[in-house]
């Protein structure tokens, strides 16, 4: 189980690879029909890529984590077929008002170069 004590600022937690395939795009469009831009990734799928990496790299997690804040910088929108690698780094951790706060950096790079970057703050449950 990954607990608050596990995290160390500056530590690379791991990487996750994903191909932006048509199945993922279709699943996204089924939920958000407006987001049909042919083979181009909709903006909001940065979250899907980031959260998949989070789910894959940071496990097992305690139940009940809460997503508190999020920052994204988008540099370009990948296209279908591109392989994306997201690396997750612990940026900081603190206890505020008795709650464990962990901030994670998420850098996503594809075959065409850097695509987007995220910073995610989670209230870690244990």
């Amino acid at each position, binding site marked *: 189980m990954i607990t608050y004590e596990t995290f160390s600022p500056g530590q690379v937690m791991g990487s996750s690879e994903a191909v932006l395939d048509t199945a*993922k795009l279709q*699943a*996204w469009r*089924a*939920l*958000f029909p*407006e*987001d049909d*831009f042919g083979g*181009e990734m*909709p*903006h*909001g799928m940065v*979250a*899907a890529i*980031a*959260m*998949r990496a*989070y*789910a*894959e790299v940071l496990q097992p*997690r305690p*139940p*009940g*984590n*809460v*997503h*508190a*804040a*999020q*920052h*994204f*910088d*988008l*540099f*370009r*929108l990948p296209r279908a077929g591109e392989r994306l690698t997201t690396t997750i780094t612990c940026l900081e951790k603190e206890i505020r008002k008795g709650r464990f706060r962990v901030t994670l950096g998420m*850098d996503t790079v594809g075959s065409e*170069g*850097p695509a987007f*970057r995220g910073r995610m703050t989670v209230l870690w449950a244990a």
Partner: protein
Amino acid sequence: MMPETLPEVGKMVDRAAILAYAAITDDFNPLHVDEAFAATTPFGRPIAHGMLSLNLVWQSLRRAFGEAMPISLEVRFVRPVLQDTQVTAGGRRREDGAYDVWVRDAAGLDVIAGIAWPSGAGERKPDQPA
């Protein structure tokens, strides 16, 4: 010419949407998908992934600015979105050229609040990748 307001985008966040988003992101946090677990929390019922509702902000930005890059977005998830809640995203231009953005529930309360920096908006630009 940068618009003063961003187009409003709404969605009903129901159980089907939450389960679909969980499958897409592989995030099956019981807070989102386990109704029995959620019943034991202060929320009383499942809450949606914050990023599900955040996509409405992305859609609003896309309607306003197309695919212009780079673009940055920073938000706080200030209130949980309970299952079966209608939410609406929008935004308003700030004096510095960036945009205050939000997602609100049916009562008009912010559930997500933050700032967007579309390409060409304001002095602050997204940091470029190394």
